């Protein structure tokens, strides 16, 4: 950390996170089981998984807000396993903002700098710079209670960035916001990261958020890492049924898991196609959800556009044949056993 730096860390100062063999249990409940993870320097990585899956615990262990039963955490090449949060050089952003309610926006952002006893002029300049970065210049003198949820979270981000952390950790940062603000902040975080380039790890249970924002996604469930990869890799080549069903809609066709938009609807029988009866046509916005019943009793559904439905002349009660457009990347009975993960 140098005194005259701007929010942008220089490329050589970028540092990654290395987690090795981390285990954490609360009584009988195993929150994390032998977690090995490398977060690339300068990246924007999402920890994705269902709630209670251990992703927040992992983030808190990296931040020093909790400690592992065994295993190590390295930040920027230094062993940080037992360092207190004060000495880790991490910025942490909480789901519910954790704003200092008695301080103005500017004083909130200045907090970390004031504690480090930086000269007043420097603090003032940095705070102004950061408030500009998060578009809160005109709210500098407001109290957190006078800001909206989205503004508060941007303030929290500026506050975390003020001390130039080596890594930025965000715990469900947009979880408490309504859908529209959430979408805006997502785009904004992406752009902010393109400007600041600080190694960023954020926790989310929203697969859309992870797919849209992150360079790399780590899927965690039941205390284990299921898969690590880029959004495209994960979506197109999920390691197992869990990852596939968590990342997007799935349906089961002839015992195989398929994405409902990767199904071909045929009006005549062909090789590899399954005969089904159309039970219901459900219009959702611009798309149509075609619900069917196969002879084995399963109920696969297909996602089509209105034009496709009209072209195929689909009606409830009619008979059609369904065929997967892409091959399933893993055997049908791989169920939930995680594969060895290529980093």
């Amino acid at each position, binding site marked *: 950390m140098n005194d005259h730096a701007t929010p942008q860390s220089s490329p050589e100062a970028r540092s990654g996170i290395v987690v090795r063999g981390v285990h954490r249990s609360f009584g009988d409940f195993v929150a994390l089981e032998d977690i090995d993870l490398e977060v690339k320097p300068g990246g924007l990585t999402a920890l994705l998984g269902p709630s209670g899956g251990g992703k927040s615990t992992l983030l808190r262990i990296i*931040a*020093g*807000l909790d400690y592992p039963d065994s295993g190590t955490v390295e930040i920027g090449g230094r062993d940080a396993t037992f360092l*207190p*949060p*004060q*000495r*880790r050089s*991490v*910025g*942490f952003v*909480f789901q*519910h903002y*954790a*704003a*200092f*309610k*008695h*301080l103005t926006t500017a004083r909130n952002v200045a*907090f*970390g700098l004031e*504690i*480090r006893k930086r000269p007043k002029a420097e603090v003032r300049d940095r705070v102004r710079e950061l408030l500009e970065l998060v578009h809160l210049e005109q709210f500098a003198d407001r*109290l957190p*209670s006078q800001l909206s949820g989205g503004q508060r979270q941007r303030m*929290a981000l500026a*506050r*975390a960035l*003020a*001390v130039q952390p080596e890594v930025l950790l965000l715990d469900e940062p947009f979880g408490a916001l309504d859908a529209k603000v959430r979408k805006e902040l997502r785009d904004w975080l992406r752009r902010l990261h393109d400007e600041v380039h600080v190694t960023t790890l954020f926790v989310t249970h929203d697969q859309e958020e992870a797919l849209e924002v992150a360079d790399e996604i780590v899927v965690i469930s039941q205390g284990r890492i299921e898969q690590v990869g880029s959004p495209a890799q994960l979506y197109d080549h999920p390691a197992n049924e869990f990852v596939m069903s968590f990342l997007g809609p799935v349906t089961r066709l002839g015992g195989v898991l398929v994405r409902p938009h990767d199904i071909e609807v045929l009006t005549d029988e062909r090789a590899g196609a399954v005969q089904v009866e159309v039970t219901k046509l459900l219009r959702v916005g611009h798309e149509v959800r075609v619900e069917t019943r196969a002879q084995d009793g399963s109920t696969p559904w297909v996602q089509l556009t209105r034009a496709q439905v009209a072209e195929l002349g689909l009606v409830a009660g009619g008979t059609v044949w369904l065929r997967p457009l892409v091959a399933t990347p893993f055997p049908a009975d791989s169920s939930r056993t995680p594969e060895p993960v290529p980093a």
Partner: protein
Amino acid sequence: MSLVAQVDRATPSAFARGRRPGELTGGASLGLGIGVLWLSLLVLLPIAAIVSTAFEDGLAGFWDAVTDAEALSAIRFTVGAALLVTAVNAVVGTLIAWVLVRDQFPGKRVLEVVIDIPFALPTIVAGLVLITLYGPSGPFGINLVGTRAGVVLALLFVTLPFVVRSVQPVLIDADREVEQAAASLGASGFTTFRRVILPTVTPAVLSGAALSFARALGEFGSVILISANLIGQTQVSSSYILKMIESQEPVAAAAVATLLLAVAVVVLVELDVVQRRTARRG
């Protein structure tokens, strides 16, 4: 005619009488009348009587009464002791509230109940209780009867729960993540306490301290046994007022009483201001 009134008229059944929420009905007005009459007979008239008696002999009479040597020394001692007790309570009460909220240890529930004893215990019993332990036949050989320290001890006893009970709920509601945020920004435990926790609990500490100050200022029952009521030394204002009314000197009694009343009103108003300001911060 306003739109609201038109809507009211147009809406049948429940709003047939056109009453807006919060407007007094006949029954409520009667109830309010009785309540206000009761308050007047019980509180307003007696207080008016005190103030008017205090100034019965004019401003000069009031001034003479409160600057009488005995009265003055009682007032000085009472205010001084109340201030000291309030300061101790602000610190120790906050500390106890902290321990009750953040610490876990066997017997915590018992401690919770013991804290309430001074509120529930009759003051005269509280005085007796303290004398048994800190009186002439106490097991520690410390005799505080007839000393100013004894009076302060009694005041500490009866005011113990004020700050604790006012700070406790604020600490329970306090967002722990705010403290973690401070830690991850580099603040040490002490810095976090000073810059984050203290500003959050300060309004609660102030309101608890104000209540404890008002209580200490007017305390009588717990003090009389341990103070031995030594004029010029351990006599508190309340004892002085009682002595004056019993020796048929209503003006002297009412004058000092008015002074205590005025302080109580100031403290209550101050408290209201603090609470309003806190409510605004949200």
